[in-house]
């Protein structure tokens, strides 16, 4: 395969536009999930649990947890889109087959899908930021800088999910990914408590996981501070995005162009 085949073209935007068009049709239930779920989390954990926890890392627990929920929601939303929704398009609806009968290539489809995962992650992040602002749990001048970070995190989680989709024979396969990757990240990457409360080896292990870096960037930005080691955290997320893209491209090419 020539290198040109792996680079996406303008067709990726047509794929992105298609997904956006479908999403717009299902706007109401989708938005309800985007706004409703974080509201429940903030109430239950921020107030319920927060009542006993008090302050964490120098801030009220609801403020601490709000930025964590933004990061984990980007992961969940982008992963779900790249797993279940993308698999439905590929196998149940044969949407990829329809696209490949046009000048679109695997790289255009894959890029459109990854971008859409990131956009969905962004939509969910913005919804949570709006809800949490009403609780005073999001503050400071750097909130807008969080948006490009959210997009980059969405690209990496979406890319990883699409690698799984390219390998999946059925929806059941995704349980492995959730149990072995998504849930551990949700619990051990600093969403609910600071990383330094983990034993040293676990802290090092957490450095390998992309959600750790999303949290490390988003928590300060959403609570009025500038993060440390920005290039390192962004670099890890970018690396995940690129490696996942190349891997997913190879796997989808093998699967779709048999």
């Amino acid at each position: 395969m020539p290198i040109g085949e792996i680079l996406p073209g303008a067709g990726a935007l047509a794929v992105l536009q298609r997904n956006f068009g479908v999403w717009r049709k299902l706007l109401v239930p989708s938005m309800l999930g985007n706004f409703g779920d974080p509201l429940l989390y903030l109430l239950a954990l921020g107030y319920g649990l927060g009542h006993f926890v008090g302050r964490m890392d120098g801030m009220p627990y609801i403020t601490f947890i709000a930025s964590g929920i933004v990061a984990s929601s980007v992961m969940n939303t982008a992963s779900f889109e790249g797993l279940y929704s993308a698999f439905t398009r590929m196998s149940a609806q044969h949407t990829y087959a329809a696209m490949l009968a046009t000048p679109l290539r695997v790289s255009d489809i894959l890029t459109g899908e990854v971008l859409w995962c990131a956009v969905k992650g962004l939509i969910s992040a913005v919804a949570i930021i709006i809800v949490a602002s009403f609780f005073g749990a999001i503050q400071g001048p750097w909130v807008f800088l969080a948006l490009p970070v959210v997009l980059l995190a969405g690209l990496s989680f979406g890319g990883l999910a699409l690698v799984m989709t390219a390998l999946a024979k059925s929806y059941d396969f995704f349980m492995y990914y959730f149990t072995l990757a998504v849930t551990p990240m949700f619990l051990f990457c600093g969403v609910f408590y600071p990383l330094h409360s983990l034993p040293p080896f676990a802290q090092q292990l957490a450095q390998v996981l992309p959600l750790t870096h999303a949290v490390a960037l988003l928590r300060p930005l959403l609570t009025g501070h500038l993060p440390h080691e920005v290039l390192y955290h962004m670099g890890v997320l970018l690396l995940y995005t690129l490696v996942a893209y190349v891997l997913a491209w190879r796997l989808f090419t093998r699967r779709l162009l048999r």
Partner: protein
Amino acid sequence: MASVVNPAFLELRVLHKRYGGREVLRGVDFAVAAGECFALVGPNGAGKSTTVRAIQGLTPTDGGEIRIGGRALAEMGRAARADMGVVPQTDNLDPDFTVQENLWTYGRYFGLPKALIRQRSAELLEFMALSDYAAQPIHSLSGGMQRRLTIARALINAPKLLLLDEPTTGLDPQARHLIWQRLRELRRQGTTLLLTTHYMDEAERLADRVGIIDHGRILAEDSPRGLIATHIPGDVVELRRVDGELPDPQDLHHQWVSVSERVGDTLICYGTDLSPLLMHFAEDPAYRWIQRPASLEDVFLRLTGRDLREESE
């Protein structure tokens, strides 16, 4: 021959394709002239769909060459698909979109400008008798209407070559006839058509030429009439016994007909003069018989055999 007068628009040269150890294409070789309708007929698993995928450049082949409009497909890459329309075997319309949104979305995949997409969509819905349903969701359409929409969608880029993989499978006769009319209309307008089918009547009605494919090879290739004339000259008599026993157990028919075969409870005889055979059996009350002209189906069954093909491609 038509292909001498018209330069070949689509050429497949000794195409080979293996999946694992299984050879699905074993030297497929045929050419379609510009503006011609060519039907590829064959049983399930014969290699029809693989051939169609290869023409789109969607499956790497293990040998041979495909040329479209004189250019090698391998060099054209995805640009080849810009001038192609594809009606796939499995419907893959977007279920969340309306009829016209399906066309608009598909037009964008070709990078066409919005105004052109809108204009063509309206024309194509008119052409496929779907204008009244433009704003309807897909699930409100019948199977035949969904197929028509799939054909309209395949025409959004005004393709020079239209590939149809079993376009009328599963449709009722009314729906099939409407689709056939539209395909003939497209052919008159100059579109080159390649269709795969296992309906012989479809091939007979639509195709200028038919290629019979089995086990990854073209077994015969000619006009429907030419194929019948070459392989089964004359008429066909089917002979059955009322009681279900073997007809003509003493093989008396051999003295009157040279070509015959037994299929289950039926004796099938081929020939130009079958009257001596009928004189012997027609009056016998133990026998039921029919005499009919040879059809493409007879040619097909004689060339590909009568064993069942359960495997899917």
